[in-house]
């Protein structure tokens, strides 16, 4: 029996085989989508870049060389140099760490909070629902970047505070999605069945409702990654995110914009990096949507 047959078996012999088989089926669907594979490639490349930054970078990201400032791309400086003579390629490479850090922290906090609030609200209904959803409405009523700006200026500029601000402003849509999903699930027979077994609301929400909400949420989060990167870059651009000399891509664009007409590479190359990574996450999200669609 080959590994493939074992994975695709109709009669799994154990819990782990059933789970692995399911994952493998999803993987087969995913690999069938070429664009999604491109997206996965970009995201994996971003992770490798962040992990192996010291090996990939040709210079230290903070090393200044004022004699060499604002040089165009060349063999020595692949992406050229900025106004302090720092190597832009190395700064972009190290900047991937910051981007990944922001994206991961936001992805681990906002969707989890939104998922809990949304499922509790949708499952319990009544007053709980009203109170939680009105709080959500308050957050939804502000434009995301404006609210993030307000939080960052209150907390003080810095990358951690930017992450907190982005997380605080991005959970409400997740709560809404999770609530809507929960409301379609909560009256189904399999929820009635587990209620009739005497399960507590906590058990039902955690074990039965959340697993069905996560797939649409994962898709939404991947599609939002681009937005998160852009918000972080926007905060960096306004000087409220990562502080100099950190090589955050948005901050790099911000300083490069003064030289945009004569030394286009200073602002453009970090911009292309943001564009490629956002595109990668969007393509990945599209592919995941096909795999995780609960209707399949």
């Amino acid at each position, binding site marked *: 029996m080959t590994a493939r047959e074992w994975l695709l078996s109709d009669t799994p012999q154990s819990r782990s085989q*059933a789970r692995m088989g399911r994952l493998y089926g999803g993987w087969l669907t995913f690999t069938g989508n070429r664009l999604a594979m491109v997206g996965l490639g970009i995201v994996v490349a971003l992770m490798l870049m962040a992990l192996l930054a010291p090996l990939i970078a040709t210079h230290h990201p903070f090393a200044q060389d004022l004699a060499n400032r604002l040089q165009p791309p060349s063999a020595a400086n692949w992406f050229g140099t900025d106004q302090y003579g720092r190597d832009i390629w190395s700064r972009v490479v190290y900047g991937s760490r910051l981007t990944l850090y922001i994206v991961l922290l936001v992805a681990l906090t906002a969707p989890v909070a939104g998922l809990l609030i949304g499922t509790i609200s949708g499952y319990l209904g009544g007053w709980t629902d009203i109170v939680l959803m009105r709080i959500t409405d308050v957050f939804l009523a502000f434009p995301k970047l404006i609210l993030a700006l307000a939080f960052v200026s209150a907390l003080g500029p810095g990358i951690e505070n930017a992450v907190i601000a982005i997380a605080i402003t991005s959970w409400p849509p997740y709560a809404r999605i999770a609530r809507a999903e929960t409301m379609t699930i909560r009256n189904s027979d399999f929820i009635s069945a587990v209620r009739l077994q*005497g399960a507590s609301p906590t058990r039902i929400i955690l074990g039965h409702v959340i697993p069905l909400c996560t797939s649409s949420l994962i898709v939404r989060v991947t599609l939002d990654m681009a937005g998160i990167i852009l918000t972080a870059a926007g905060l960096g651009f306004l000087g409220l995110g990562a502080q100099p000399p950190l090589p955050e891509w948005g901050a790099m664009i911000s300083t490069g914009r003064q030289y945009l007409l004569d030394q286009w590479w200073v602002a453009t190359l970090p911009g292309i990096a943001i564009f490629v990574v956002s595109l990668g996450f969007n393509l990945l999200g599209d592919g995941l949507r096909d795999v995780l669609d609960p209707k399949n």
Partner: protein
Amino acid sequence: MTQAMIGIEDLDVTFGYGAATVHAVQNVTFQVKPGESFGLVGESGSGKSTVLRAMSGLNPDWSGNVSLDGQTLGRQRDKAFYKRCQMVFQDPYGSLHPRHTVDRILAEPVAIHGLGDADKRIDRTLREVGLGPQFRFRFPHQLSGGQRQRVAIARALILEPRVLLLDEPTSALDVSVQAEILNLLKRLRAEHGLTYILVSHNLAVVAYMCDRLAVMNRGRVVEELDVESLRRGQAQQDYTRQLLLASQGYDRAVADSFKDFA
């Protein structure tokens, strides 16, 4: 007379408020003896499933008296109630969690009630409903309708209840599979001494499965009779006779003669 296993007295269920109130069940009273199989029949919307849902604890908006094994039941049920009274749903495609394996579905009630020994219980129950161990780690989408309904029955049985509430357990299934499931339910009742309430619109199913039945129309019990009289067609009420006629297949002359019983 032995004490009733299930007693329902003056059960009233309403939905909605004010002008939009729907009186789904009115003054329903019946008793089911231990080990008996009791049928609730009626056309769609007659309130038979609503009676079952009020009995099971799924719908708390009722008034009247409901008792199980002599104990009066409140609107909120406790674990001890769920241990003794389980339900099988109509649609086996909707009653199993799509992301849980059969194993997980059956392990859940064992964990909730802290019964322990989950492995043995699951194996034994699967065998009882005629599914081999090869089904244990499958997902519902890898099962046929009949197999799913067997899993649903196993899920109800694993708590070793005394009462099973059956909400049209075969109407979503293929005709050939229906017979298998009915035979399974019949055998399980004999083996475990279960008490059944079977809701169905199919008189043949009720005649096969039940000892006694109540006919419902517009939220009221029209008539209670035993299966022998049903087979002989000795119904007292016009509505029941009409239902019997309707169940014998479509006939234009008969259909034209039908009345609306308000």
